[in-house]
Protein backbone atom coordinates (compact mmCIF):
# COMPACT_ATOMS: atom_id res chain seq x y z
CA UNK A 1 0.00 0.00 0.00
CA UNK A 2 2.78 2.38 0.98
CA UNK A 3 4.31 1.94 -2.48
CA UNK A 4 1.27 3.39 -4.22
CA UNK A 5 2.65 6.25 -6.38
CA UNK A 6 0.20 8.79 -4.96
CA UNK A 7 1.11 7.86 -1.39
CA UNK A 8 4.83 8.09 -2.16
CA UNK A 9 4.24 11.53 -3.72
CA UNK A 10 2.29 12.73 -0.69
CA UNK A 11 4.81 11.42 1.83
CA UNK A 12 7.72 12.84 -0.16
CA UNK A 13 6.08 16.24 -0.51
CA UNK A 14 5.12 16.27 3.13
CA UNK A 15 8.66 15.43 4.29
CA UNK A 16 10.10 18.09 2.01
CA UNK A 17 7.69 20.77 3.24
CA UNK A 18 8.19 19.74 6.86
CA UNK A 19 11.98 19.82 6.61
CA UNK A 20 12.07 23.25 5.01
CA UNK A 21 9.41 24.70 7.32
CA UNK A 22 11.34 23.54 10.39
CA UNK A 23 14.58 24.92 8.96
CA UNK A 24 12.85 28.19 8.05
CA UNK A 25 11.27 28.36 11.51
CA UNK A 26 14.71 28.03 13.12
CA UNK A 27 15.99 30.72 10.76
CA UNK A 28 12.88 32.78 11.54
CA UNK A 29 13.64 32.72 15.25
CA UNK A 30 17.04 34.21 14.40
CA UNK A 31 15.31 36.89 12.32
CA UNK A 32 12.97 37.71 15.20
CA UNK A 33 15.89 38.07 17.61
CA UNK A 34 18.61 39.62 15.47
CA UNK A 35 17.02 41.48 12.54
CA UNK A 36 18.10 45.12 12.45
CA UNK A 37 17.85 46.82 9.07
CA UNK A 38 19.80 49.82 10.32
CA UNK A 39 22.82 47.68 11.02
CA UNK A 40 25.37 46.93 8.34
CA UNK A 41 26.80 44.00 10.28
CA UNK A 42 27.89 40.82 8.58
CA UNK A 43 25.09 38.91 10.31
CA UNK A 44 22.42 41.35 9.18
CA UNK A 45 23.61 41.22 5.56
CA UNK A 46 23.74 37.43 5.72
CA UNK A 47 20.16 37.38 7.07
CA UNK A 48 19.03 39.65 4.22
CA UNK A 49 20.55 37.34 1.62
CA UNK A 50 19.28 34.19 3.27
CA UNK A 51 15.71 35.31 3.81
CA UNK A 52 15.37 35.91 0.08
CA UNK A 53 16.41 32.34 -0.66
CA UNK A 54 14.40 30.75 2.13
CA UNK A 55 11.19 32.62 1.42
CA UNK A 56 11.48 31.79 -2.29
CA UNK A 57 11.91 28.08 -1.57
CA UNK A 58 9.13 28.19 0.99
CA UNK A 59 6.78 29.83 -1.51
CA UNK A 60 7.15 26.90 -3.90
CA UNK A 61 6.77 24.34 -1.15
CA UNK A 62 3.73 26.03 0.34
CA UNK A 63 2.20 26.06 -3.14
CA UNK A 64 2.83 22.31 -3.11
CA UNK A 65 1.20 22.19 0.32
CA UNK A 66 -1.94 23.76 -1.12
CA UNK A 67 -2.05 21.18 -3.89
CA UNK A 68 -1.34 18.33 -1.49
CA UNK A 69 -4.70 18.79 0.23
CA UNK A 70 -6.49 17.91 -2.99
CA UNK A 71 -4.00 15.17 -3.80
CA UNK A 72 -4.62 13.68 -0.36
CA UNK A 73 -8.39 13.64 -0.89
CA UNK A 74 -7.91 12.26 -4.40
CA UNK A 75 -5.62 9.53 -3.03
CA UNK A 76 -8.05 8.62 -0.26
CA UNK A 77 -10.72 8.26 -2.92
CA UNK A 78 -8.51 6.24 -5.28
CA UNK A 79 -7.49 3.71 -2.64
CA UNK A 80 -11.00 3.03 -1.31
CA UNK A 81 -11.42 -0.21 -3.36
CA UNK A 82 -8.65 -1.74 -1.20
CA UNK A 83 -10.87 -1.63 1.88
CA UNK A 84 -13.94 -3.72 2.45
CA UNK A 85 -16.97 -1.52 2.95
CA UNK A 86 -15.42 1.71 1.69
CA UNK A 87 -17.30 3.43 -1.11
CA UNK A 88 -15.32 6.67 -1.33
CA UNK A 89 -12.64 8.69 0.48
CA UNK A 90 -14.77 8.73 3.64
CA UNK A 91 -14.31 4.96 4.04
CA UNK A 92 -10.57 5.14 3.36
CA UNK A 93 -10.11 7.92 5.90
CA UNK A 94 -11.99 5.89 8.50
CA UNK A 95 -9.64 2.90 8.17
CA UNK A 96 -7.62 4.13 11.12
CA UNK A 97 -7.67 6.97 13.59
CA UNK A 98 -5.30 9.21 11.64
CA UNK A 99 -7.22 9.64 8.37
CA UNK A 100 -9.74 12.26 9.46
CA UNK A 101 -7.17 13.92 11.73
CA UNK A 102 -4.80 14.27 8.77
CA UNK A 103 -7.54 15.74 6.62
CA UNK A 104 -8.49 18.32 9.25
CA UNK A 105 -4.86 19.30 9.87
CA UNK A 106 -4.31 19.53 6.10
CA UNK A 107 -7.26 21.88 5.72
CA UNK A 108 -5.88 24.08 8.52
CA UNK A 109 -2.41 23.94 6.88
CA UNK A 110 -3.98 24.88 3.54
CA UNK A 111 -5.49 28.04 4.98
CA UNK A 112 -2.43 29.02 7.00
CA UNK A 113 0.05 28.26 4.22
CA UNK A 114 -2.15 30.26 1.85
CA UNK A 115 -2.16 33.21 4.24
CA UNK A 116 1.61 32.96 4.61
CA UNK A 117 2.01 32.99 0.83
CA UNK A 118 -0.09 36.15 0.61
CA UNK A 119 1.89 37.82 3.43
CA UNK A 120 5.13 36.83 1.74
CA UNK A 121 3.99 38.14 -1.65
CA UNK A 122 3.11 41.48 -0.09
CA UNK A 123 6.33 41.63 1.93
CA UNK A 124 8.38 40.96 -1.20
CA UNK A 125 6.90 44.02 -2.83
CA UNK A 126 7.94 46.31 0.02
CA UNK A 127 11.37 47.81 -0.36
CA UNK A 128 12.37 47.51 3.31
CA UNK A 129 11.20 43.99 4.28
CA UNK A 130 8.16 45.50 6.02
CA UNK A 131 6.53 42.22 7.09
CA UNK A 132 9.62 40.16 7.74
CA UNK A 133 9.03 39.75 11.46
CA UNK A 134 5.30 39.17 10.99
CA UNK A 135 5.74 36.48 8.38
CA UNK A 136 8.41 34.60 10.32
CA UNK A 137 6.43 34.84 13.57
CA UNK A 138 3.47 33.45 11.62
CA UNK A 139 5.70 30.71 10.23
CA UNK A 140 6.68 29.74 13.78
CA UNK A 141 2.97 29.27 14.43
CA UNK A 142 2.48 27.13 11.31
CA UNK A 143 5.53 24.90 11.91
CA UNK A 144 3.95 22.67 14.62
CA UNK A 145 0.90 22.18 12.41
CA UNK A 146 3.03 21.14 9.43
CA UNK A 147 4.98 18.78 11.68
CA UNK A 148 1.72 17.29 13.00
CA UNK A 149 0.45 16.91 9.45
CA UNK A 150 3.59 15.05 8.40
CA UNK A 151 3.39 12.71 11.38
CA UNK A 152 -0.37 12.11 11.10
CA UNK A 153 -0.19 11.51 7.37
CA UNK A 154 2.75 9.11 7.72
CA UNK A 155 0.97 7.22 10.50
CA UNK A 156 -2.23 7.11 8.46
CA UNK A 157 -0.56 5.63 5.40
CA UNK A 158 1.77 3.34 7.36
CA UNK A 159 -1.13 1.87 9.30
CA UNK A 160 -3.32 1.15 6.32
CA UNK A 161 -4.24 -2.52 6.31
CA UNK A 162 -6.02 -3.79 3.20
CA UNK A 163 -7.93 -6.48 5.09
CA UNK A 164 -9.66 -4.00 7.38
CA UNK A 165 -13.41 -3.68 7.11
CA UNK A 166 -14.33 -0.03 7.25
CA UNK A 167 -17.56 1.95 7.24
CA UNK A 168 -19.10 3.36 4.09
CA UNK A 169 -20.02 7.01 3.86
CA UNK A 170 -23.72 6.25 4.19
CA UNK A 171 -23.02 5.01 7.70
CA UNK A 172 -20.49 7.68 8.62
CA UNK A 173 -22.73 10.54 7.54
CA UNK A 174 -26.00 8.92 8.52
CA UNK A 175 -28.03 11.64 10.21
CA UNK A 176 -29.29 9.17 12.79
CA UNK A 177 -25.76 8.18 13.90
CA UNK A 178 -24.21 9.49 17.09
CA UNK A 179 -20.96 10.84 15.64
CA UNK A 180 -19.91 14.45 15.04
CA UNK A 181 -20.10 13.86 11.28
CA UNK A 182 -23.60 12.49 11.51
CA UNK A 183 -24.73 15.35 13.77
CA UNK A 184 -23.45 17.81 11.19
CA UNK A 185 -25.14 15.90 8.40
CA UNK A 186 -28.35 15.98 10.43
CA UNK A 187 -28.49 19.78 10.42
CA UNK A 188 -32.00 20.61 9.14
CA UNK A 189 -31.94 21.39 5.42
CA UNK A 190 -34.40 24.25 5.20
CA UNK A 191 -32.92 26.43 7.98
CA UNK A 192 -29.43 25.66 6.64
CA UNK A 193 -30.51 26.84 3.18
CA UNK A 194 -31.63 30.13 4.69
CA UNK A 195 -28.40 30.47 6.67
CA UNK A 196 -26.33 29.62 3.60
CA UNK A 197 -27.95 32.09 1.25
CA UNK A 198 -28.10 34.88 3.84
CA UNK A 199 -24.42 34.28 4.62
CA UNK A 200 -23.61 34.23 0.90
CA UNK A 201 -25.46 37.50 0.23
CA UNK A 202 -23.94 39.25 3.26
CA UNK A 203 -20.41 38.10 2.39
CA UNK A 204 -20.75 39.06 -1.26
CA UNK A 205 -22.24 42.44 -0.29
CA UNK A 206 -19.35 43.08 2.11
CA UNK A 207 -16.90 42.18 -0.66
CA UNK A 208 -18.57 44.48 -3.19
CA UNK A 209 -18.73 47.25 -0.60
CA UNK A 210 -15.03 46.83 0.04
CA UNK A 211 -14.23 46.96 -3.67
CA UNK A 212 -16.29 50.10 -4.20
CA UNK A 213 -15.72 52.05 -0.97
CA UNK A 214 -12.35 50.57 0.10
CA UNK A 215 -13.84 50.07 3.54
CA UNK A 216 -14.97 47.15 5.67
CA UNK A 217 -11.97 44.85 5.17
CA UNK A 218 -12.38 43.41 8.68
CA UNK A 219 -16.10 42.78 8.18
CA UNK A 220 -15.49 41.06 4.84
CA UNK A 221 -12.80 38.87 6.43
CA UNK A 222 -15.05 37.84 9.32
CA UNK A 223 -17.95 37.10 6.98
CA UNK A 224 -15.66 35.16 4.60
CA UNK A 225 -14.35 33.04 7.48
CA UNK A 226 -17.83 32.32 8.79
CA UNK A 227 -19.15 31.67 5.28
CA UNK A 228 -16.40 29.09 4.80
CA UNK A 229 -17.74 27.19 7.83
CA UNK A 230 -21.35 27.69 6.75
CA UNK A 231 -20.50 26.39 3.26
CA UNK A 232 -18.96 23.18 4.61
CA UNK A 233 -21.96 22.63 6.91
CA UNK A 234 -24.31 23.34 4.00
CA UNK A 235 -22.53 20.79 1.82
CA UNK A 236 -23.11 18.22 4.56
CA UNK A 237 -26.64 19.29 5.30
CA UNK A 238 -28.35 19.93 1.95
CA UNK A 239 -26.03 20.63 -0.99
CA UNK A 240 -24.66 17.09 -1.27
CA UNK A 241 -28.10 15.50 -1.30
CA UNK A 242 -29.04 17.48 -4.41
CA UNK A 243 -26.14 15.87 -6.24
CA UNK A 244 -26.93 12.36 -5.04
CA UNK A 245 -30.69 12.90 -5.35
CA UNK A 246 -30.97 10.92 -2.15
CA UNK A 247 -32.24 12.80 0.90
CA UNK A 248 -30.37 10.48 3.27
CA UNK A 249 -26.94 10.60 1.60
CA UNK A 250 -24.86 13.48 2.99
CA UNK A 251 -21.35 12.36 2.09
CA UNK A 252 -19.02 15.29 1.26
CA UNK A 253 -16.60 12.97 -0.59
CA UNK A 254 -18.71 11.10 -3.14
CA UNK A 255 -19.06 14.33 -5.17
CA UNK A 256 -15.32 14.06 -5.79
CA UNK A 257 -15.85 10.93 -7.85
CA UNK A 258 -16.06 10.50 -11.59
CA UNK A 259 -19.73 9.54 -11.35
CA UNK A 260 -20.48 13.12 -10.30
CA UNK A 261 -18.12 14.68 -12.83
CA UNK A 262 -15.54 15.42 -10.12
CA UNK A 263 -17.74 18.41 -9.24
CA UNK A 264 -16.46 18.28 -5.66
CA UNK A 265 -13.07 19.66 -6.72
CA UNK A 266 -14.34 22.96 -8.16
CA UNK A 267 -16.72 23.21 -5.19
CA UNK A 268 -13.98 22.83 -2.58
CA UNK A 269 -11.49 24.97 -4.52
CA UNK A 270 -14.09 27.74 -4.72
CA UNK A 271 -15.08 27.42 -1.06
CA UNK A 272 -11.53 27.30 0.30
CA UNK A 273 -10.21 29.87 -2.18
CA UNK A 274 -12.97 32.35 -1.37
CA UNK A 275 -12.50 31.82 2.36
CA UNK A 276 -8.74 32.20 2.17
CA UNK A 277 -8.78 35.32 0.00
CA UNK A 278 -11.54 36.91 2.04
CA UNK A 279 -9.67 36.28 5.29
CA UNK A 280 -6.49 37.69 3.78
CA UNK A 281 -8.24 40.98 2.92
CA UNK A 282 -8.78 41.56 6.62
CA UNK A 283 -5.40 40.27 7.72
CA UNK A 284 -3.62 42.68 5.37
CA UNK A 285 -5.70 45.68 6.48
CA UNK A 286 -3.42 46.82 9.36
CA UNK A 287 -0.42 46.87 7.00
CA UNK A 288 -1.88 49.64 4.84
CA UNK A 289 -0.30 52.06 7.31
CA UNK A 290 3.22 50.75 6.62
CA UNK A 291 4.77 53.46 4.38
CA UNK A 292 6.45 51.06 1.92
CA UNK A 293 3.17 49.11 1.58
CA UNK A 294 0.77 52.03 1.31
CA UNK A 295 0.18 51.29 -2.37
CA UNK A 296 0.95 47.56 -2.36
CA UNK A 297 -1.59 46.48 0.28
CA UNK A 298 -4.68 48.21 -1.20
CA UNK A 299 -3.84 46.73 -4.62
CA UNK A 300 -3.37 43.26 -3.12
CA UNK A 301 -6.59 43.59 -1.11
CA UNK A 302 -8.53 44.51 -4.25
CA UNK A 303 -7.21 41.48 -6.11
CA UNK A 304 -7.95 39.20 -3.15
CA UNK A 305 -11.46 40.59 -2.67
CA UNK A 306 -12.16 40.12 -6.37
CA UNK A 307 -10.83 36.54 -6.25
CA UNK A 308 -12.93 35.82 -3.17
CA UNK A 309 -16.03 37.17 -4.91
CA UNK A 310 -15.33 35.03 -7.97
CA UNK A 311 -15.03 32.00 -5.66
CA UNK A 312 -18.33 32.86 -3.99
CA UNK A 313 -20.07 33.28 -7.35
CA UNK A 314 -18.64 30.02 -8.76
CA UNK A 315 -19.80 28.10 -5.68
CA UNK A 316 -23.21 29.78 -5.68
CA UNK A 317 -23.71 29.07 -9.40
CA UNK A 318 -22.82 25.39 -8.97
CA UNK A 319 -25.14 25.03 -5.97
CA UNK A 320 -28.10 26.91 -7.44
CA UNK A 321 -27.74 25.17 -10.80
CA UNK A 322 -27.76 21.80 -9.07
CA UNK A 323 -30.75 22.71 -6.94
CA UNK A 324 -32.67 23.65 -10.09
CA UNK A 325 -31.75 20.65 -12.27
CA UNK A 326 -31.79 18.01 -9.53
CA UNK A 327 -34.69 15.58 -9.46
CA UNK A 328 -34.69 15.84 -5.70
CA UNK A 329 -37.16 18.20 -4.05
CA UNK A 330 -36.47 18.91 -0.39
CA UNK A 331 -39.45 20.02 1.64
Amino acid at each position, binding site marked *: MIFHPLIIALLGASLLVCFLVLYAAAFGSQILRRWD*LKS*GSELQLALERKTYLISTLLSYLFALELLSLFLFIFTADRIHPFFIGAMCAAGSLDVNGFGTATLLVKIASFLLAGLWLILNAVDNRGIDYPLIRTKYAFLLGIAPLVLAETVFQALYFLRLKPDITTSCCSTLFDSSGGTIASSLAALPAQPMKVVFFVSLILTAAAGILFLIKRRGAGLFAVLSGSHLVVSVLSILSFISVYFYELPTHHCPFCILQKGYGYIGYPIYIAVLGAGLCGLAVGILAPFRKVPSLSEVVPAAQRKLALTALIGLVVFAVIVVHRMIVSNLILR
Partner: protein
Amino acid sequence: MIELFEARKVYHAGEPNEFVALQGITLKLNAREMTVIQGPSGSGKTTLLSLIGGMVRPTSGRIYLLGREITSLPERFLTEIRRRTFGFIFQHFNLVRGVSALENVMLPAFPTGESRAALKKRALSLLGLFDVASKAAARVEHLSGGEAQRVTIARALINNPDAVIADEPTAHLDTRLSCELMEMLGRLKAEGKAVLIASHDPLVAEAPAVDRIVQLRDGRIEGDG
Protein backbone atom coordinates in the same frame (compact mmCIF):
# COMPACT_ATOMS: atom_id res chain seq x y z
CA MET B 1 25.44 61.00 -4.45
CA ILE B 2 26.95 57.61 -3.53
CA GLU B 3 28.19 56.91 -0.04
CA LEU B 4 29.93 53.81 1.24
CA PHE B 5 30.05 53.21 4.94
CA GLU B 6 32.47 50.62 6.34
CA ALA B 7 31.99 48.43 3.24
CA ARG B 8 33.79 45.12 3.50
CA LYS B 9 33.86 42.32 0.97
CA VAL B 10 35.09 38.81 1.67
CA TYR B 11 35.07 36.11 -0.98
CA HIS B 12 34.73 32.45 0.08
CA ALA B 13 34.16 33.48 3.71
CA GLY B 14 34.97 30.75 6.21
CA GLU B 15 36.67 28.57 3.62
CA PRO B 16 40.39 27.81 3.27
CA ASN B 17 40.59 30.11 0.23
CA GLU B 18 38.94 33.04 2.03
CA PHE B 19 39.98 36.33 0.48
CA VAL B 20 39.32 39.78 1.90
CA ALA B 21 38.95 42.02 -1.16
CA LEU B 22 37.86 45.20 0.64
CA GLN B 23 38.19 46.20 4.27
CA GLY B 24 36.09 48.92 5.84
CA ILE B 25 35.84 51.30 2.89
CA THR B 26 34.17 54.62 3.72
CA LEU B 27 33.89 56.85 0.68
CA LYS B 28 31.63 59.56 -0.72
CA LEU B 29 31.25 60.14 -4.47
CA ASN B 30 29.57 63.26 -5.79
CA ALA B 31 27.65 64.07 -8.94
CA ARG B 32 29.50 66.10 -11.59
CA GLU B 33 32.76 64.63 -10.33
CA MET B 34 35.26 62.32 -12.02
CA THR B 35 36.95 59.96 -9.60
CA VAL B 36 39.74 57.59 -10.51
CA ILE B 37 40.43 54.58 -8.35
CA GLN B 38 44.06 53.60 -8.66
CA GLY B 39 45.85 50.61 -7.30
CA PRO B 40 47.80 47.53 -8.29
CA SER B 41 46.20 44.32 -9.47
CA GLY B 42 44.32 42.62 -6.61
CA SER B 43 43.94 45.85 -4.67
CA GLY B 44 40.13 45.64 -4.85
CA LYS B 45 39.38 48.18 -7.62
CA THR B 46 36.96 46.01 -9.55
CA THR B 47 35.27 44.78 -6.37
CA LEU B 48 34.79 48.37 -5.24
CA LEU B 49 33.24 49.31 -8.59
CA SER B 50 30.99 46.25 -8.44
CA LEU B 51 29.84 47.19 -4.93
CA ILE B 52 29.10 50.76 -5.92
CA GLY B 53 27.27 49.63 -9.05
CA GLY B 54 25.11 47.21 -7.08
CA MET B 55 26.44 44.19 -8.93
CA VAL B 56 27.92 42.63 -5.79
CA ARG B 57 26.70 42.92 -2.22
CA PRO B 58 29.13 43.71 0.59
CA THR B 59 29.81 41.19 3.33
CA SER B 60 29.22 43.97 5.84
CA GLY B 61 28.72 47.72 5.72
CA ARG B 62 26.18 49.81 3.89
CA ILE B 63 25.96 51.73 0.63
CA TYR B 64 23.69 54.74 0.20
CA LEU B 65 22.53 56.14 -3.12
CA LEU B 66 21.05 59.63 -2.96
CA GLY B 67 20.53 59.03 0.76
CA ARG B 68 18.71 55.75 0.27
CA GLU B 69 20.29 52.57 1.59
CA ILE B 70 20.63 50.09 -1.27
CA THR B 71 22.63 47.22 0.23
CA SER B 72 19.58 45.60 1.82
CA LEU B 73 17.39 45.87 -1.24
CA PRO B 74 16.03 42.64 -2.67
CA GLU B 75 17.36 41.92 -6.14
CA ARG B 76 14.21 43.00 -8.01
CA PHE B 77 14.48 46.53 -6.59
CA LEU B 78 18.22 46.65 -7.01
CA THR B 79 17.96 45.69 -10.69
CA GLU B 80 15.73 48.69 -11.35
CA ILE B 81 18.06 51.04 -9.49
CA ARG B 82 21.08 49.62 -11.28
CA ARG B 83 19.40 50.05 -14.64
CA ARG B 84 18.37 53.64 -14.05
CA THR B 85 21.35 54.89 -12.08
CA PHE B 86 24.46 53.27 -13.48
CA GLY B 87 25.98 52.85 -16.90
CA PHE B 88 28.78 50.33 -17.05
CA ILE B 89 31.85 50.35 -19.30
CA PHE B 90 33.67 47.07 -18.99
CA GLN B 91 37.33 46.35 -19.56
CA HIS B 92 36.54 43.66 -22.14
CA PHE B 93 33.58 45.64 -23.57
CA ASN B 94 31.18 42.73 -22.93
CA LEU B 95 29.32 43.39 -26.17
CA VAL B 96 27.01 40.62 -27.33
CA ARG B 97 28.55 38.92 -30.35
CA GLY B 98 26.42 38.06 -33.36
CA VAL B 99 24.25 41.13 -32.76
CA SER B 100 24.57 44.55 -34.38
CA ALA B 101 26.10 47.54 -32.63
CA LEU B 102 22.71 49.25 -32.61
CA GLU B 103 21.01 46.33 -30.88
CA ASN B 104 23.85 46.10 -28.37
CA VAL B 105 23.24 49.72 -27.45
CA MET B 106 19.48 49.18 -27.17
CA LEU B 107 19.78 46.01 -25.11
CA PRO B 108 19.93 47.48 -21.54
CA ALA B 109 16.76 49.50 -22.23
CA PHE B 110 14.61 46.59 -23.41
CA PRO B 111 13.28 45.76 -19.90
CA THR B 112 12.03 49.34 -19.45
CA GLY B 113 9.22 48.67 -21.91
CA GLU B 114 9.95 51.80 -23.93
CA SER B 115 8.78 51.65 -27.54
CA ARG B 116 11.29 50.18 -29.93
CA ALA B 117 11.07 53.18 -32.27
CA ALA B 118 11.93 55.67 -29.52
CA LEU B 119 14.69 53.41 -28.30
CA LYS B 120 16.19 53.03 -31.75
CA LYS B 121 16.14 56.77 -32.27
CA ARG B 122 17.97 57.37 -29.00
CA ALA B 123 20.49 54.58 -29.65
CA LEU B 124 21.28 55.99 -33.12
CA SER B 125 21.66 59.44 -31.63
CA LEU B 126 24.14 58.10 -29.06
CA LEU B 127 26.09 56.22 -31.71
CA GLY B 128 26.18 59.47 -33.70
CA LEU B 129 27.43 61.35 -30.65
CA PHE B 130 30.42 59.03 -30.48
CA ASP B 131 30.99 59.00 -34.27
CA VAL B 132 30.04 55.37 -34.86
CA ALA B 133 26.59 55.85 -36.40
CA SER B 134 27.91 54.41 -39.65
CA LYS B 135 28.61 51.14 -37.81
CA ALA B 136 25.10 50.79 -36.36
CA ALA B 137 24.21 47.81 -38.54
CA ALA B 138 27.61 46.11 -38.23
CA ARG B 139 28.03 43.10 -36.03
CA VAL B 140 30.17 43.97 -33.04
CA GLU B 141 32.80 41.33 -33.78
CA HIS B 142 33.63 43.25 -36.95
CA LEU B 143 34.35 46.50 -35.09
CA SER B 144 37.83 47.78 -34.27
CA GLY B 145 38.87 48.21 -30.63
CA GLY B 146 38.15 51.94 -30.66
CA GLU B 147 34.78 51.47 -32.33
CA ALA B 148 33.82 48.74 -29.88
CA GLN B 149 34.78 51.02 -26.99
CA ARG B 150 32.54 53.80 -28.34
CA VAL B 151 29.65 51.40 -28.77
CA THR B 152 30.21 50.34 -25.15
CA ILE B 153 29.99 53.94 -23.98
CA ALA B 154 26.83 54.48 -26.02
CA ARG B 155 25.35 51.37 -24.43
CA ALA B 156 26.26 52.63 -20.95
CA LEU B 157 24.32 55.82 -21.62
CA ILE B 158 21.17 54.39 -23.20
CA ASN B 159 19.18 54.62 -19.94
CA ASN B 160 20.54 58.11 -19.23
CA PRO B 161 22.19 57.06 -15.95
CA ASP B 162 23.29 59.44 -13.20
CA ALA B 163 26.65 57.72 -12.89
CA VAL B 164 29.03 56.05 -15.31
CA ILE B 165 31.29 53.32 -14.00
CA ALA B 166 34.28 52.26 -16.09
CA ASP B 167 36.58 49.39 -15.24
CA GLU B 168 40.02 49.70 -16.89
CA PRO B 169 38.48 51.41 -19.93
CA THR B 170 41.81 52.09 -21.62
CA ALA B 171 43.24 48.60 -21.17
CA HIS B 172 42.75 47.71 -24.84
CA LEU B 173 43.20 51.16 -26.36
CA ASP B 174 46.24 52.93 -27.75
CA THR B 175 47.25 56.38 -26.50
CA ARG B 176 45.19 58.34 -29.04
CA LEU B 177 42.04 56.35 -28.37
CA SER B 178 42.64 56.50 -24.61
CA CYS B 179 42.82 60.30 -24.76
CA GLU B 180 39.67 60.40 -26.86
CA LEU B 181 37.90 58.19 -24.35
CA MET B 182 38.88 60.44 -21.44
CA GLU B 183 37.57 63.42 -23.39
CA MET B 184 34.27 61.66 -23.89
CA LEU B 185 34.05 60.82 -20.20
CA GLY B 186 34.90 64.44 -19.43
CA ARG B 187 31.91 65.50 -21.52
CA LEU B 188 29.67 63.19 -19.50
CA LYS B 189 30.96 64.74 -16.29
CA ALA B 190 30.20 68.19 -17.67
CA GLU B 191 26.65 67.03 -18.33
CA GLY B 192 26.31 66.41 -14.59
CA LYS B 193 27.05 62.70 -14.35
CA ALA B 194 29.29 61.17 -11.73
CA VAL B 195 32.12 59.31 -13.46
CA LEU B 196 34.00 56.60 -11.62
CA ILE B 197 36.97 54.92 -13.26
CA ALA B 198 39.13 52.10 -11.98
CA SER B 199 42.48 52.15 -13.71
CA HIS B 200 46.19 51.84 -13.17
CA ASP B 201 46.90 53.63 -16.45
CA PRO B 202 48.75 56.93 -15.66
CA LEU B 203 47.16 58.46 -18.73
CA VAL B 204 43.76 58.20 -17.06
CA ALA B 205 44.89 59.72 -13.75
CA GLU B 206 46.58 62.59 -15.59
CA ALA B 207 43.53 63.49 -17.69
CA PRO B 208 42.41 67.10 -17.09
CA ALA B 209 38.80 66.10 -16.33
CA VAL B 210 39.82 64.03 -13.31
CA ASP B 211 38.85 65.67 -10.00
CA ARG B 212 39.91 63.10 -7.52
CA ILE B 213 42.18 60.07 -7.23
CA VAL B 214 41.54 57.38 -4.65
CA GLN B 215 44.52 55.10 -3.99
CA LEU B 216 43.63 51.54 -3.09
CA ARG B 217 45.97 48.86 -1.76
CA ASP B 218 45.17 45.51 -0.19
CA GLY B 219 41.51 46.42 -0.02
CA ARG B 220 42.08 49.63 1.93
CA ILE B 221 42.10 53.29 0.93
CA GLU B 222 45.68 54.55 1.12
CA GLY B 223 45.14 58.01 -0.29
CA ASP B 224 42.25 60.23 -1.36
CA GLY B 225 42.73 63.57 -3.05
